[in-house]
């Protein structure tokens, strides 16, 4: 966002310069685009300019005590001074106060921005770069700046270009990318690429393993299906062959029917027996007796007690016992202590429920459970034996039939073979699907693959992110260099054109900007030449930037010749939205008139001097007197004021 700084005015009390208050707004509260403050040499122009610089940058916090005391007014009894400056920062008021204590040799800042005053120099974040020591030098221009612009130890023009043309935003973007990268990879190690390759290899191996297993399973399933299909057909064929022989078919049918019935009975009985066995009291009389004894023992010793722990805990809270005695603190502690010996009410309830379960299961006879179970098991045994006999008869019948029909025997042999193969296939398949066979089990393998795929994706993302980050850095670095170079080239070109206009007969030109301004074929120039180069450079800089900064200058044309003064006067209104110059009387010539023309006459004329140094009409409403100074706001007075030096 473009920044706009406007100075509304300032007030200086207790300094070497006369006490004064400057307002840069006119009666309709609009800004004077040009304000000229005429002060004779020695009045304190430099002091005022230094105070303005300090107010705009917080510079005074770094001043030594001796430096601070240089600002002290002679005969300043209370040894204190105040400088207050008001600004608009993007239309919002910002006030800086500097409280000088010459006795202590310190300066205290106070800042007001929005609500409340705060201690310290605290400009809003977005203006910090413009309200800094390095930057302020470029728009609060003292006579030395022109020389300093040519000295890389004293200035950093490149930084100013970066800030003005927002090339520094590229660095901000780079920092944002770094932060994103750090946040995204805070848990990652530096060997990410290697880790990714390894993870990808693991994933590939596991996928190949799964593929092999699935292929094996498919083969096994196909084999089982094939054999089962063949077995089914053979069974049908076997049965139909048997049916053809009436000798065997009826008998076989009967035996098969018997077998089926026996098996069904067996199944039904085993269900009943299993159900019975789930009650441990039925397993043996000994077990039933043990459980019964357990229950009886609890009853004998009256466990669980009828009173539960909660009863005693509640009793302890009472003031009086059930027997009527007082429950003192000691008695309460004792009750609570002994209450721990009792079971809780839930425990009591459970134990009683267990006793009931035992009673219900055992009933009146400890042996009845076992006896009933024995009966059932005997039946089961007999059924199993019967089934075995029927199976044997059946097998014999099959054998007899096969003996009389070789084809049947062949079929039977093949069926047996197939049954064995099917059983073998099913057993082989178990290892892939039974979780007990962890090495071959495909379900955990599938899960491992999913986990690995997620890890690889995450690492790939990190590696990709790093590649993108590196590429972005490269692009941004190139953009930064190109922007700096190209902008510098453009500024140099424009500035040189302006120098040509200001000094048409002078060969002085800027070669490049490399921290400071580097002149072609020469290290420096005369004061006038330096000033012209500075004007050309600064006007190019500020005109092309989106930001709007005031321009404050000491002796704008003091060392410059007549013709060039006129050119500079034409430049000034285009230099900045707000131009403030400290002038002396000798600068008016060849400067004031062209300036008035160039700025449409919208100029504030101020003359400031110490009391007693010049005549004035004290009754005039354009005169403001302070303890030791006189400020006159009048064009005619300005034009006629002749004192160049105190």
């Amino acid at each position, binding site marked *: 966002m473009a920044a706009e700084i406007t100075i509304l005015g300032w007030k200086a009390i207790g300094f070497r310069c006369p006490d004064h208050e400057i307002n840069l707004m006119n009666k309709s509260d609009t800004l004077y685009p040009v304000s000229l403050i005429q002060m004779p040499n020695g009045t304190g122009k430099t002091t005022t300019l230094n105070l303005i610089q300090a107010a705009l940058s917080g510079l005074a916090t770094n001043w030594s005590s001796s430096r601070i005391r240089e600002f002290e007014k002679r005969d300043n009894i209370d040894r204190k001074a105040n400088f207050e400056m008001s600004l608009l920062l993007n239309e919002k008021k910002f006030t800086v106060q500097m409280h000088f204590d010459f006795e202590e040799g310190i300066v205290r800042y106070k800042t007001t921005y929005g609500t409340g005053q705060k201690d310290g120099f605290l400009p809003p974040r977005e203006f910090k770069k413009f309200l800094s020591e390095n930057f302020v030098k470029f728009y609060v221009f003292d006579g030395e700046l022109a020389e300093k612009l040519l000295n890389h130890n004293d200035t950093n023009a490149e930084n100013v270009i970066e800030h003005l043309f927002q090339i520094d935003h590229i660095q901000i973007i780079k920092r944002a990318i770094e932060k994103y990268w750090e946040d995204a990879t805070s848990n990652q190690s530096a060997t990410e690429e290697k880790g990714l390759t390894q993870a990808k290899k693991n994933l590939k191996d596991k996928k190949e393993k799964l593929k092999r297993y699935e292929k094996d399973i498919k083969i096994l399933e196909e084999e089982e299906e094939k054999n089962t299909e063949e077995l089914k057909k053979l069974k049908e064929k076997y049965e139909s062959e048997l049916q053809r022989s009436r000798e065997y078919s009826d008998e076989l049918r009967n035996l098969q029917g018997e077998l089926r019935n026996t098996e069904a009975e067996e199944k039904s009985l*085993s269900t009943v027996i299993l159900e019975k066995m789930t009650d441990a009291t039925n397993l043996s009389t000994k077990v039933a007796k043990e*459980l019964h004894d*357990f229950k009886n023992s609890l009853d004998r*010793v009256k*466990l669980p007690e009828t009173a539960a722990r909660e009863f005693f805990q509640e009793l302890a809270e009472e003031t009086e016992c059930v027997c009527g005695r007082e429950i003192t603190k000691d008695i309460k502690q004792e009750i609570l202590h002994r209450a721990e*010996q009792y079971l809780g009410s839930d*425990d009591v309830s459970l134990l009683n429920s*267990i006793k009931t379960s035992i009673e219900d299961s055992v009933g009146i006879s400890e042996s009845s459970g076992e006896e009933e179970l024995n009966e059932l098991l005997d039946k089961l045994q007999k059924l199993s034996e019967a089934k075995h006999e029927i199976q044997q008869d059946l097998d014999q019948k099959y054998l007899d039939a096969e003996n009389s029909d070789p084809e049947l025997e062949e079929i039977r042999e093949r069926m047996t073979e197939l049954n064995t193969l099917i059983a073998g296939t099913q057993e082989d398949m178990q290892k892939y699907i039974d979780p007990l066979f962890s090495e071959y089990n495909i379900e955990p393998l599938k899960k491992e693959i999913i986990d690995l795929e997620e890890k690889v994706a995450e690492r790939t993302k990190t590696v990709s992110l790093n590649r993108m980050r590196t590429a972005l850095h490269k692009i941004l670095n190139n953009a930064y260099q190109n922007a700096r170079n190209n902008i510098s080239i453009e500024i140099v070109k424009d500035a040189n054109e302006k120098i040509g206009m200001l000094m048409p007969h002078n060969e002085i030109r800027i070669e490049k900007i490399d921290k400071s301004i580097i002149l072609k074929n020469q290290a420096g120039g005369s004061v006038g030449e330096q000033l012209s180069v500075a004007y050309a450079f600064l006007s190019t800089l500020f005109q092309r930037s989106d930001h709007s900064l005031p321009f404050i200058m000491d002796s704008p044309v003091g060392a410059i010749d007549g013709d060039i003064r006129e050119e500079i006067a034409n430049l000034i209104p285009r230099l900045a939205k707000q131009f403030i110059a400290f002038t002396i009387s000798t600068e008016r010539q060849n400067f004031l008139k062209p300036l008035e023309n160039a700025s449409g006459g919208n100029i504030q004329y101020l003359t400031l001097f110490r009391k007693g140094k010049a005549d004035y009409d004290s009754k005039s409403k354009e005169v403001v007197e302070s303890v030791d100074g006189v400020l006159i706001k009048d064009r005619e007075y300005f034009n006629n004021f002749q004192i160049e030096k105190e």
Partner: protein
Amino acid sequence: MGFKLRNDAKRWFKKIRDQKDNSFNVEFDSYYFCLISGLLSKRQEDIPASDLTEFIDYFPDKYKNKGKILIALFLSKELNKMGVSFDEKKQVHAVVSKLIDPQSYNYLSEEGLKQFNRYANAGFDELSDKMDRPETIEDFLISFDKHIKNNNY
């Protein structure tokens, strides 16, 4: 924490578990017989966690109403193991309080369940040492009964 069955026990019972249309069809069936063997033989054993599979923490299905009988048998064995007589009411309280938890689904405290599982672990050794791997449920039930009688449990 729930009931834990040994992985080798699962394999041992697999054939009868897989048998069609039979009532030996929940994991707890396998666990029950291991547990009973352990309780009746008074054997307990610790098994590495990797060799165990935790399943449910409640008495399922046909065991729903039999759970308290199992708890009773367990308490009886534990009191006996610790040499606590019923006349020592304080000690009986302490053992009971330590091993049961009326609020849990299986009425056992954490310690109680841990000891329960230790009986089941050892019970499987007892079964596999003394019985052949069962081929059918019918064979198993008959064999198990013989096992109880042979050892006079």
